[in-house]
């Protein structure tokens, strides 16, 4: 019940295209849904996050879409750039969980010229 399922495992997108990564969860006690970006040899870094009372959040080229009834959320990267090539993790936090995150399995994104 604490799993977060992420797809696809890998993704290749042309420069300027839209990258879409999807996540699904079962536990309705999750109350915070962040996305982390990780470059090779580095630790993950927070990219964008959303709470379940909001259906969409946009920060620059990055948008989270959240569907509470379907228990799904997705990351959209508009105008994808080679510098966006990284591994992306979705995550979820249990209410009262002290910021402990359950992570998805990750999506390796490659943006080609």
């Amino acid at each position: 019940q604490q799993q977060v399922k992420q797809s696809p495992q890998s993704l290749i997108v042309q420069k300027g295209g839209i990258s879409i990564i999807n996540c699904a969860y079962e536990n309705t006690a999750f109350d915070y849904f962040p996305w982390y970006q990780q470059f090779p040899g580095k630790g993950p870094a927070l990219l964008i996050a959303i709470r379940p009372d909001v259906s969409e959040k946009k920060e620059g080229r990055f948008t989270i879409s959240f569907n509470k009834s379907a228990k799904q959320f997705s990351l959209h990267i508009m105008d994808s750039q080679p510098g966006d090539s990284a591994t992306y993790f979705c995550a979820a936090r249990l209410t009262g969980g002290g910021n402990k995150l359950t992570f998805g399995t990750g999506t390796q994104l490659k943006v080609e010229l």
Partner: protein
Amino acid sequence: NAGVTQTPKFRILKIGQSMTLQCAQDMNHNYMYWYRQDPGMGLKLIYYSVGAGITDKGEVPNGYNVSRSTTEDFPLRLELAAPSQTSVYFCASSASGVGSEKLFFGSGTQLSVL
């Protein structure tokens, strides 16, 4: 500010050896965490701490121990290393309270047990 500092960056252990992975943060964060990252598996929580003197198990605690004697430091101890502990280990910290959910990660320790 240095943020979250992990040492060493790389280490090779023989089966049965023990070692301590060091983690220090200079942001005065109450919460600290240890995650391990395996290919295709995401990050799994090993142990976490909500303050000095308080630690608790995460999802995959077997074979590990932690202590938190100060706010700044959160070392992870591996006793009797096994090949299954070959992984990349990340320490993270966060503030507590509403609006403080952001985790700050260190750059990781790559551990191989042979």
